[in-house]
Every structure is written in structure tokens, then in C-alpha cells.
């Protein structure tokens, strides 16, 4: 495959992504020490984690070089992950006692 040599060739690109990931991980640690509500903290954490995961998927796992596979993996995964979220309302009902309380 012609792209093979180029996509694995750029060490500098890997290093940039690596540094970005380290910075993002550091940001997570900083967020952990902020005095904010758990909900806010969760939101910030998941945003950073998703950015980290996207970087790793695109550049470490080279999905950026294969558009078709990228869509297959992302759509499949995101769909299954979303389908798993139905249970949350029951979790909130345990803590709050009613369907959509507070």
C-alpha cells in the first residue's frame, strides 16, 4: 500500500500527538483539583477523555488514513455506546426517588 510508508514514517507527527496527549492527561489532573460540582467535573473529564481517545484513534491507530474504516468503527462504536445509556434514569431514580426529580 502506497500510504503505508508515509503514514508510519512521520515520527515528528507521533511526537506531537504524544505531547498533546500528555498535556490533555495533565489537564484532567488539573480538573480533578478544581472545586466544582461532580456533574461539572464529570462533563469536563469526559470531554477531555473523548478528545484524547479521538487523537489516539486517528493518529496512533491510524484511522485518519482510512476514511471508510474510520466511519465503520466510529458509527458502530458510538451507536453501541449510546444504546447502553438507557439505564441512567433508573440510577437517578434510586438517588432521587422519582422519575425526573429536581
Amino acid at each position: 500500500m502506497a500510504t503505508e510508508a508515509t503514514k508510519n514514517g512521520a515520527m515528528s507527527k507521533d511526537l506531537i500527538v504524544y505531547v498533546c496527549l500528555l498535556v490533555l492527561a495533565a489537564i484532567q489532573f488539573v480538573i480533578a483539583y478544581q472545586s466544582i460540582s461532580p456533574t461539572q467535573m464529570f462533563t469536563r473529564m469526559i470531554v477531555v477523555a473523548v478528545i484524547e481517545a479521538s487523537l489516539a484513534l486517528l493518529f496512533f491507530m491510524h484511522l485518519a488514513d482510512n476514511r471508510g474504516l474510520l466511519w465503520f468503527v466510529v458509527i458502530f462504536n458510538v451507536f453501541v455506546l449510546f444504546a447502553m445509556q438507557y439505564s441512567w434514569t433508573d440510577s437517578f431514580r434510586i438517588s432521587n426517588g422519582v422519575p425526573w426529580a429536581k
Partner: protein
Amino acid sequence: MSTTTPGEITMPMPAPAPSSLMEKPAFSVPAKKMAMWLFIIADTATFAGCLVAYGFLRNATPNWPRPFHSITNLAVMTFILLTSSLTMLNGVRAARAGNKAGALRWTLITAALGIAFALLHIREWMALIDEGMTLLKNPWGTGLFGASFYSITGLHLTHVTGGVIALIVVGLRYKGGRYNADDLEVLGLYWHFVDLVWMFVVPFVYLLNLAH
């Protein structure tokens, strides 16, 4: 992984079919790489199932304990795992360039980093056990804290351990000529995935439970 393990098949291999005899694979991805991606999709569902279960219970439990004080160990572990992804990339790159010795060296460095991660992880577990946190109970609150912590990090640690073994085996067999650069790349995908999962385990299982 290999379908041609010596000793298992005594007959000589038939000549590989020229690719013009077959349709182009979907997404232009060869079978081994495709299988690894599919495994990653399935494993994502496995980890997501565990994390959703953990989130479900954590959210439903008032006064969930937030006992972690130091993040130094965690930061070192995260740094090691992220770095091991970089060394894995170097290994695959060396293999692509035909540099067998370099590929083996980088792969073994990756495995060594994986071992370091696992050892730090186990040390952390030991410290937590010493503090009285077990699968069933802990000094700070609901017993579910320990149960979910050990389950999720244990699942991840299992993946790291399996990955380390695979890295050593595939690395050596690559040097011996049984596996090629493609196989190393496929294993690299797995290793990056283990890294990727850690990016979610760190914030949810550790950082959200940091004492203030």
C-alpha cells in the same frame, strides 16, 4: 494468530492465492487487522458495560467515598502507558523500514514499560489493601467502591498483562521470521487500545474519587 504454526500442520503450505483472484477487502483492510478492529469494538462494549455499571452505582449512592489523596503514582502510570504507545509506534515504524533489530528492541521496550505499569499498578493495589480497602469493604464508605475499583482496574490490568505477553511473543517471533510487520502493527492496535481505555479509567475511576 498464526495459521501456520509448525508442528501443527505437517503438510507444506499451498502457494498463496494471488490477490487478483479475490475481491478487494472491504475498507482495504486485511483480515488480521480487521479482526483486531472488530475485537476492539467488542472490547469497547465490554469496558463500556463495566464503566456504565460503575457509573450507575456511583451515581445512585449518596456519599460515595472519595479517598484518593496522592496522584503521583497515577501520573507516573499514565505517563508510562502513554509513552509505551509511542515506543510501540516506533517499533512498527522500524519493522516497516525492514529494521528487524530495531523493531524487536522497541517492542521489548514497550513490553518493559507495560511491565513497569503493571508493577506500579500492583504496588498501588497493595497499598490500598493495606489501607483496608478490599473487594467487600473499605474504611471510607460503601463496599461497592472497592468492588468496582478492583473490577475495572483488574479488567484493565488483565488486558495489560495479556498485551505484555503478546508483545514479547510476537516481537521474538517477528525477529525469527514467523510474523511480519503487519502482525506487529495489528498488535500495536491492541496496545494503543489498552492505552485508550486507560484514558477513561483514569478520570472516572481515580480522578472523580479524589479527596478535596
